């Protein structure tokens, strides 16, 4: 166990968790206005309608597979009567289908980003970095599948190494040796994934955290009172004014005597919000001005 191993497998995971959780809370508090899928379907929908469902359904199954593979100890499935080889067979088949769908979908999405003029123009540097990390994580993941199943090199049962390490991290007793025993492909995949998770709160990927499951249980028509429609967080209150279209009820006393005598200070009519990166929209937007 070298110092680097210690750093990568005992310290880094916690840093990533801290950044992921802290970053998400920060973003939710201060940039709720930037929290969106930034859909590009208005520009192009033919390719999106193939690529996006392929990718999303694929990645959701893959994510589910990771949870099972990493969290459920091998003894449990063995005790349940599922042999190591049988478990692997089903994982490879299910994972294989989902993996192929994910990669195909991702390929279509990336191609579409590059090839459709308006979509390409709307692609920010943030998006490009996100896609690079996403592609890297998925590519590294596929390599591990090939390595693990023995198609390339020696077969490796990651549930005896990576999974053990993963659970040890969760129980706050990181087992660095378990991870160093895994083949390099697995370690690379884990590293890239950690990078992706650390960047997650600062990209458009946050949309996954607000998947709208509550919709299934809600009455169709939503009424909200003017009184209660004020947002509570400081940033939300700010963006209320900043975006102009933040269609809350305006807050404030109806009569602010000193103010009414001043000329209306509009926040700069010509400015438009620099929202193209979806991260920050400051004040100053003509739509506020009447």
């Amino acid at each position, binding site marked *: 166990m070298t110092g680097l191993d210690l750093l990568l497998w005992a310290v880094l995971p916690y840093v990533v968790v801290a950044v992921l959780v802290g970053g998400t809370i920060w973003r939710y508090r201060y940039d709720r206005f930037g929290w969106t899928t930034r859909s590009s379907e208005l520009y192009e929908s033919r390719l999106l309608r193939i690529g996006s469902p392929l990718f999303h359904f694929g990645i959701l199954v893959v994510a589910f597979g990771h949870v099972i593979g990493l969290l459920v100890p091998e003894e449990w499935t063995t005790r349940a009567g599922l042999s190591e080889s049988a478990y692997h067979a089903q994982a490879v088949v299910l994972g294989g289908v989902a993996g192929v769908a994910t990669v195909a979908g991702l390929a279509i999405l990336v191609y579409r980003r590059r090839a459709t003029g308006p979509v390409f*123009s709307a692609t920010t540097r943030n998006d490009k970095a996100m896609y690079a990390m996403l592609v890297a994580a998925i590519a590294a993941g596929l390599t591990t599948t090939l390595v693990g199943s023995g198609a390339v090199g020696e077969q490796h049962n990651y549930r005896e190494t990576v999974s053990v390490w993963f659970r040890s991290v969760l129980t706050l007793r990181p087992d660095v040796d378990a991870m160093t025993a895994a083949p390099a492909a697995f370690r690379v995949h884990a590293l890239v994934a950690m990078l992706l998770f650390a960047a997650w709160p600062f990209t458009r990927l946050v949309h996954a955290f607000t998947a*709208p499951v509550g*919709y299934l249980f809600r009455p169709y028509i939503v009424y909200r009172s003017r009184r209660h429609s004020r947002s509570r967080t400081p940033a939300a209150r700010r963006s209320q*004014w900043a975006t102009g279209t*933040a269609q809350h009820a305006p807050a404030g006393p*109806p009569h602010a005597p000193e103010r009414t005598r001043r000329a209306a200070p509009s926040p*700069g009519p010509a400015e438009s919000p620099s929202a193209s990166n979806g991260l920050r929209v400051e004040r100053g937007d003509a739509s506020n*001005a009447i």
Partner: protein
Amino acid sequence: MTRPDRAPGRVMAQLAMVMNLDKCIGCHTCSVTCKQVWTNRGGVEYAWFNNVETRPGQGYPRRYQDQETWRGGWTRTRGGRLKPRSGGRLRRLLTLFANPVMPNIRDYYEPWTYDYDNLTSAPLGDDFPVARPTSLLTGEPLSIQWSANWDDNLGGGAEVCDQDPVVERMRQKAEESVRFAFEQAYMFYLPRICEHCLNPSCVASCPSGSLYKRSEDGIVLVDQDRCRGWRMCVTACPYKKIYFNHKTGKAEKCHFCYPRVEVGLPTVCSETCVGRLRYLGLVLYDADRVGEAAAVENEHDLYEAQLDLLLDPDDPRVQDAARRDGIPEDWLAAARRSPVYALAKRHRVALPLHPEFRTLPMVWYIPPLSPVVDAVAESGHDGEDVDNLFGAVDALRIPVAYLAELFSAGDPEPVRAVLRRLSAMRSYMRRVNLGDPADETIAQAAGMTGAEVTELYRLLAIAKYHDRYVVPTAHETDGPVPEAACGLDFDGGPGAYGGPFGEASGRPVPVSVETFHALKDRQTADAPADTAGPGARVNLLNWDGRGRPAGLFPPPHTQEQP
């Protein structure tokens, strides 16, 4: 005229609008002022919260009324329940990753600008330099194909207008080929904003619950902090009045100028309307019966069902119920004076746009009598004679059928009834204006009394500002809110116009409160415009040209003084 057999359920107030189509001259002032105020930003270049379309025509976005394609509004299931036409809850979540019927930007139009720079920077040559159009989406040169009112004034002719979905429907129903007779075209303008529906399908389709109907005044709004860009509302609105901001990735829509109406000012489109054809007022309605009314089986009954929801503000039982449900006294008074209630329910001259979408729209339209009057006058008859007009209303099948497709789900009777009332008003008032004795039989022919006709005339023809706009101010139920009470916000103080990092930093000024109060002050004041000290800024959009605001012009030349 609430049904006597039924006590009102939960009473809610709704700010609503009526547009008198006979007066619209198609000048697009409303669209332009609205755009200047609300959507002159990147991401919504293509969006017109208010647009004016020529009928017959394809509308904006193209053919939006064709719900077989666009799947907006509600459908009634066989069991008699309502379901968004674009699908129920589960289906919606499963199609979240790519909306199956999202309009493309080209269904609106690809926004563009011009390469103005070329006008000054082109090298000297024989040719006159031109400013070529370039796309605002890609920056590439673009050939302009379509826009929000490309078929203005029947531009494009039969080729374009033949694809009007309303004309198509009429054709289907007539089972004969009614060619769109361009030569004998009747034509009128249809200004459109969001309908602020009582049963909004946009709200129903929003997975994250960011769209909501405000319970105080019924305005339908998007909470920008909660919108996640799932873009389902764009499909679900049958009027296509939700626009996806492609820069911010959030939905935006007409918000009935809520910062203005909250302080009692009319919406921008109403205030600036050249024809002065818009009316704003409250209606009280029975919220418990909304679902029932929207789900009546026969589409032709929807108009009556919708009218039936509106409660009579003069009925003491309604007033008691309204008080019980927390509607303040001044709002009740405003509801009694409401021109919308008067035109829609008392005089029954205003109709909802496409009631068959089942969203119970709250912008009402007085259908134009002008095609009828024109037809009578062109045939050499007296266009103000009640018998001629009544005869024409019955005989002119095509304009009436067209109006009926727009305003009463294809049932010509409600349209005819309105046109008869308007005709009767025309004839009745002509006699009065010529000094002849009033002829009560004319009023009776349309089922009205002379007094009612006169009242209608006052509302429609005299149309005083304060009769057109009866907008009660909002009630602030909470105490002062922190951002409006920054201790350093006083004039000239450090918090006045900017924070520590200059103008655009720090806490923003709550514009909607401040701007609108200032605006109201200015509009009702006799004194010239702001003359506050140095640093005072003037908002050019609402500077009315009066006075000489400091900071707007350079200081006067001192040499001019002797």
